[in-house]
């Protein structure tokens, strides 16, 4: 069991450290919100205003009644992501926002592939390739068959290139959904947030771990 507790939105560079120009990487931003019209815009403009591209966006109801969960993927430096997450959390209808690196999450994307049934029937190799790639049949019709895979981007991409020579009719891929490795999970955190007034958790800060450095004046 991995105990990956360090994450949350409060992980930043050492106090005073200048991370300007620090290396960019993929971050998974998780946002819990009330389900309100217009909130998607409010969140989206936090990125677009700073000319940051959202690479993947998923939003759907969470396990808690009337609370939605966003999964957003962007490529940025941690310093920028940290500030973005604070701006997101500041929105009235956002309960909590967190960010994690790819190493901190388990994530999947779902892909659907439509291929001509004739081709598959004729070319045994195709069926083998599909099986090798973990594809499952979703729909089987006389004229076409729809396969499904889930996995990381490279995996779902791989099957596209495999199927392309055999007349791939259509392809679609979902946004990324990511679940955090942290054994604590958010269910408890969220319920706690709902009980607390005002919010406590936001107080947690990198400074707590930097105390000794501060007083070397």
């Amino acid at each position, binding site marked *: 069991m991995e105990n990956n507790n360090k994450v949350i939105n409060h992980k930043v560079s050492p106090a005073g*450290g200048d991370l300007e120009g620090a290396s960019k990487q993929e971050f998974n931003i998780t946002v819990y919100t*009330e389900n309100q*019209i*217009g909130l998607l*815009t409010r969140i989206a403009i936090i990125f677009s205003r700073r000319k940051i591209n959202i690479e993947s966006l998923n939003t759907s109801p969470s396990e808690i009644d009337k609370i939605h969960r966003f999964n957003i993927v962007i490529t940025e430096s941690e310093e920028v992501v940290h500030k973005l997450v604070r701006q997101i959390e500041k929105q*009235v209808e956002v309960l909590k926002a967190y960010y994690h690196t790819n190493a901190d999450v388990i994530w999947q994307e779902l892909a659907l592939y439509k291929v001509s049934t004739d081709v598959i029937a004729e070319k045994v190799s195709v069926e083998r390739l599909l099986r090798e790639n973990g594809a499952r049949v979703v729909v089987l019709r006389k004229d076409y068959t729809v396969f499904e895979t889930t996995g990381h981007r490279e995996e779902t991409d791989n099957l596209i290139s495999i199927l392309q020579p055999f007349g791939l009719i259509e392809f679609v891929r979902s946004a990324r959904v990511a679940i955090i490795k942290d054994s604590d999970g958010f269910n408890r955190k969220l319920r706690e947030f709902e009980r607390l007034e005002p919010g406590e958790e936001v107080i947690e800060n990198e*400074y707590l771990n930097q105390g000794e450095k*501060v007083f070397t004046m």
Partner: protein
Amino acid sequence: MEVAQETLTTPAPTTAVEVSGSVALLEALIVEGVDTIFGYPGGAIMPIYDALFDYNDKLNHILVRHEQGGIHAGQGYARTSGKVGVVFATSGPGATNLVTGLADAQIDSTPVVCITGQVFAHLLGTDAFQETDVINITTPVTKWNYQVTDANEIPEVIAKAFYIAKSGRPGPVLIDITKNAQIQKFNFEGYTKCNHIRSYRPKPIVRTQYVQEAAALINQAKKPFIIWGQGVILGTAEQEFKAFVEKSGIPAAWTVLGAGAIPTEHPLNVGMLGMHGNYGPNVLTNECDVLIAIGMRFDDRVTGRLDKYAKQAKVVHLDIDPAEIDKNVKSTVPVWGDCKETLPMLTKLIEEKKHTEWLNTFNEYTQKEIEAVIHDELNPTTPEMTMGEVIKQLNEITKGEAIIVTDVGQHQMVACRYAKFNKTRSNVTSGGLGTMGFALPAAIGAKFGAQDRTVVAIIGDGGFQMTLQELGTIMQTGIDVKIIILNNRFLGMVRQWQELFNERRYSFVDIQSPDFVAVAAAYRIAGKMIDDRKDLPAALNEMLSTKGSFLLEVMVTKENNVFPMVPQGCSVAEIRLK
């Protein structure tokens, strides 16, 4: 969870009454303590205006001349009264005219609730007459907005609107109400103020550990420096702030929006920060050892070049908005929370001190600034008057008791630098957005928000022409606003930059003006123009003693520059005296 239970003012119902959405809205406003509304009617908000016809005795609706004037008036009202400014506008062009004011209120954290009419719900998305997507247009410039399409939503949504606008870090809220919802009758079960929203925590919990660590830093500091902003005023923490400053003995400087939280003349008040702020506070920002920032957000006009800003200092940042912590300047100790709570905790833990020598350093810089800049600005020998001497004369008459509302430009910086403020909520200006045209309508609102105080608007010849239609509002309401136009016959601040940084290539800054006194006269507002120094005291006295509004146009030097100045891209230590 305790919920404040308040009911209809008239009649006090024990059971639900059937009312229209419009009536429910007005009843909600009354329970929220609203007494003044700035607005402008139109097709999509007509049902609300029809209901308002019967509420004349309870709600004072001020008919402005332009919706931008309406929202700036609402902002001025909020800034001087500490209450939420309320603005009505119709759909389409009425609503889009609010956008500048919303952006201004958003960046300056001003609590405003705007109610806009919207086309019938069934017409949404059909490009109906005067339909604009107001919610999406205003999303980036509001703290929160919401479209009501059913009257049943009105009580709850209005309660949320007021709660959000004024709690935590305040800001503008816009509620767009479709016409059908305004007309629709529903069972109104009274109005309950909101004090909780599931996803919203207006202020973070104060952690005593941080307060203790901040106090330890402050107690060890040899050259501590306090910089404060509007957060002190928004948090009504002026007393708590004063106690902190006085016990700590630490020199304190203000951002433009923080001016007046403690009096200008307070011995520990060392002046203004930022691009046109005072010499000492800017230079010494880069020499202090502990920088204590209270309710301010390190705007670039305050910090100058960020990578050369206070790098030597430990930074203690007190702010109610967690997103401000570490946004621009990395804090050593972040004291999250409402400064009304955190300041007394801090005051208790700090040692009583006097930083005499350090304070003297500030005074030495003040002397240098007086010699290089201030003396000549306030006591000029030039044939034409300077802006500074007008403010100095005004101080002598008002004794720092007036509310000063400024527009944007050189006159704004001069007024903020030299005006005396004895009281809090006395400096009303557009700080973060720098909105020309702000002052005249904001002054009207400021006066409605503080009717027992003198309100003096100081406006440039350029900015006055952006919203001078609001003279009509003054005429019709008879409100008493003193207007000083500092006429340098230029878009002065832009001209100054062109002089200093564009080799005097004066590109479209040479602005012509009408006869302002004649314009005022057309609105039946008394006025006078002076261009001779010897007339200044008498003219100011006449302006202030005249009953009702008065416009005083003062001809000032054409090409004066505001100094000191931290040129854009320079560090605060590179501040120029000339």
